[in-house]
């Protein structure tokens, strides 16, 4: 013990001699480390802030005399001015745009990813990937304009002007599919290219065609990554706001017709908060309740996708 102590004393005194600043530096280092830890902790504060603020106001919303949780789950009308707060019109519209978007984004996204990872020459890939990245970098309000000014007139000229309303969930959903396409493509392509080359070579050696190798060997091996990509895509579609705010229509309507206008959860929040919203009004509290619902759904989907990746990932050495 004594000897160790001595040794330590010796080394510290030696260092002090050589740098002369060690004692003071250490306090500085600790302060810096604490500051860095705090900035890391800000992200936790943000989550706590979201849960606390949204939860608090949502609770106030459900305490209002006009609102009850049971009623909002059974009522098929959302009309704040008549005291109807049934969540279903907003939920069905959200589901409709999401389903339409995924009908576009999943097949196209997988097709593009398989093409880029299994078929395209490196040269073609180097040209095509940046183009698709541009698609991912375009702001969503621009897609909103595109939905209203291109997709809606297109749908109206195909299906007839009396069938398709000016504001409809179909055009919003289709354009949302284009928006989510690059997301699914890039995540799927990452998963496909993580499959080791040896698996492909083995399958080719067995006489598989390129398609058989891609669909029966590479895709199954990357399935967890693909599933995660799809779930993230769904989560993104549910939270997508500006496309539906511009093109899907204003006014919650309970309809399953994609050619009619309807308002999604996000679209409703944007429309309600567009004016000068007065604090503690029922509208003000309702956007917090809806925001909390959105947060819960997307958080659950994100966690599921992370779990899938972690649990089912094939690990190759």
């Amino acid at each position, binding site marked *: 013990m004594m000897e160790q102590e001595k040794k330590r004393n010796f080394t510290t005194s030696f260092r002090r001699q050589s740098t002369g600043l060690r004692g003071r530096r250490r306090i500085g280092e600790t302060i810096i480390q604490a500051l860095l830890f705090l900035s*890391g902790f800000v992200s936790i504060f943000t989550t706590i802030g979201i849960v606390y603020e949204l939860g608090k106001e949502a609770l106030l919303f459900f305490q209002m005399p006009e609102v009850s949780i049971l009623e909002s789950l059974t009522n098929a009308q959302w009309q704040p001015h008549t005291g109807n707060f049934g969540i279903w019109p907003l939920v069905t519209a959200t589901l409709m745009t999401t389903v339409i978007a995924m009908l576009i984004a999943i097949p196209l996204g997988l*097709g593009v990813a398989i093409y880029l990872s299994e078929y395209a020459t490196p040269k073609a890939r180097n040209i095509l990937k940046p183009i698709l990245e541009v698609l991912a970098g375009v*702001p969503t309000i*621009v897609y909103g304009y595109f939905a*209203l000014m291109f997709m809606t007139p297109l749908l109206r000229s195909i299906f007839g002007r009396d069938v398709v309303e000016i504001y409809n969930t179909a055009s919003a959903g289709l354009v949302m599919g284009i928006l989510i396409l690059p997301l699914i493509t890039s995540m799927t392509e990452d998963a496909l290219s993580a499959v080791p080359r040896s698996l492909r070579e083995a*399958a080719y050696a067995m006489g598989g065609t390129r*398609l058989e190798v891609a669909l029966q060997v590479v895709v199954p091996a990357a399935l967890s990554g693909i599933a995660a990509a799809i779930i993230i895509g769904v989560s993104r579609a549910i939270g997508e*706001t500006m496309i539906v705010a511009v093109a899907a229509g204003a006014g919650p309507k309970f309809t399953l017709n994609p050619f009619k206008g309807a308002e999604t959860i996000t679209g409703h*929040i944007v429309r309600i908060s567009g004016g000068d919203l007065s604090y503690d009004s029922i509208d003000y509290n309702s*956007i917090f309740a809806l925001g909390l619902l959105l947060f819960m759904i997307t958080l659950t989907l994100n966690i599921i996708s992370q779990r899938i990746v972690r649990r089912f990932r094939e690990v190759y050495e």
Partner: protein
Amino acid sequence: MKAITTSTRPIGQSVQRPNPSLKGRGESLANYSVNTKGRRRKGSIWRWIFQLSTMIGIIALLALLLNIINGAFGYAVLEAKVDPATLAVNGVPLEEQSKGQLIDVLQSKLSSGAFNKLERDQPFAERSRANVYQLVIERLVKYDIKASWPLWDSLTHSGEIKATFARDYPNAQLRFISWFTADFVSRPQSSEALTAGVRTAILGSLWTILFTLLLAFPLGVGAAIYLEEYATDNRLNRLIRTNINNLAGVPSIVYGILGLAIFVRTLEPLTSGELFGLVDPTTANGRTVLAAGLTLGLLVLPIIIINAQEAIRAVPQSLRKASYGLGATKWQTIWSHVLPNAMPGILTGTILAISRAIGETAPLVVVGASTAISFDPASPFSKFTTLPIQIYQWTSRPQDEFRSLAAAAILVLLVILLSLNASAILLRNRFSRRL
């Protein structure tokens, strides 16, 4: 690697009798070899399908760009409320009048109150002739847009357009308008489509981004340094990591609601400037540039952290070891060796985060962007509008001319984003050359 790729292709395609075990499912060998042609055909059909879906993606991008360009130019029918010919002085038409003559016209036709207000905004002695001419057009001639056509129609159906114009609008003039001009970028916002511009919105975006950066850059880089250099693998640090990933997936509108609750409402004294005695407490309003910037700061924080983490991770371990070997402390090592080497990567990630923030609309609508302001933001406590908000408002209006303005504003936004991304790519290239 390349040699392997090229050599595997012919094997996959030229095999005559593939091993049945690959296809399996009880097919007999005899059956199977007959099927080679079918399998190849199937392969080429699917290959075509995969190629097609890639093409669809590219076509969508092209359609998007062409649609915007289509909206930003085209013929419009302008009808003047007052015929410019009646404003001629002594036979000199409006276009050829001097600045003094134009001011006289304004003075004689406008009420003295309106004229004095213009003088107060900016004395006529200081205004240029072009500015006064624009005032005459705006305040006296007052063009009204009766109809407008997109670029495609203007090019392909110009005959019909001219016929419609001649038939329906005898007192008007037909003009080919480019909505996307240098003037459009430098003019302030206005409720008249012909004189509206995006200067107010661009300045609003810049102010907002400034505060986004001031919040998110130090915090984001700090968090990344902590996670990469200091954090041990304990429960709390794992929680922070998972949490950052989850925050990156939270819909942007939820951040808007959070910003409304925290920055606009709870921190109103700070964000409205009341704390600094700049505004009267009774009229204080937290819906300011500062609140918007901070909200976007929280939104892009996870993006900056994740990118900075990657950049820091890419710094070779040998650099740190060498620095420690020379007796540097941990922070000295990070500050003078890790950070300088990671900086190009960190900046690239920050630029990507900025371009995300510049395009965000939904959270700012919730935080409370102003619908119509025509004065430039002058302080952190100004009311704000941003470029995407302006696009949203113009798109939501039913008149065609405002949709054209929206298209032109989108072009401005895309040019800004494109130059940001180009600088990110330049940085990335420099980065990869150095390491």
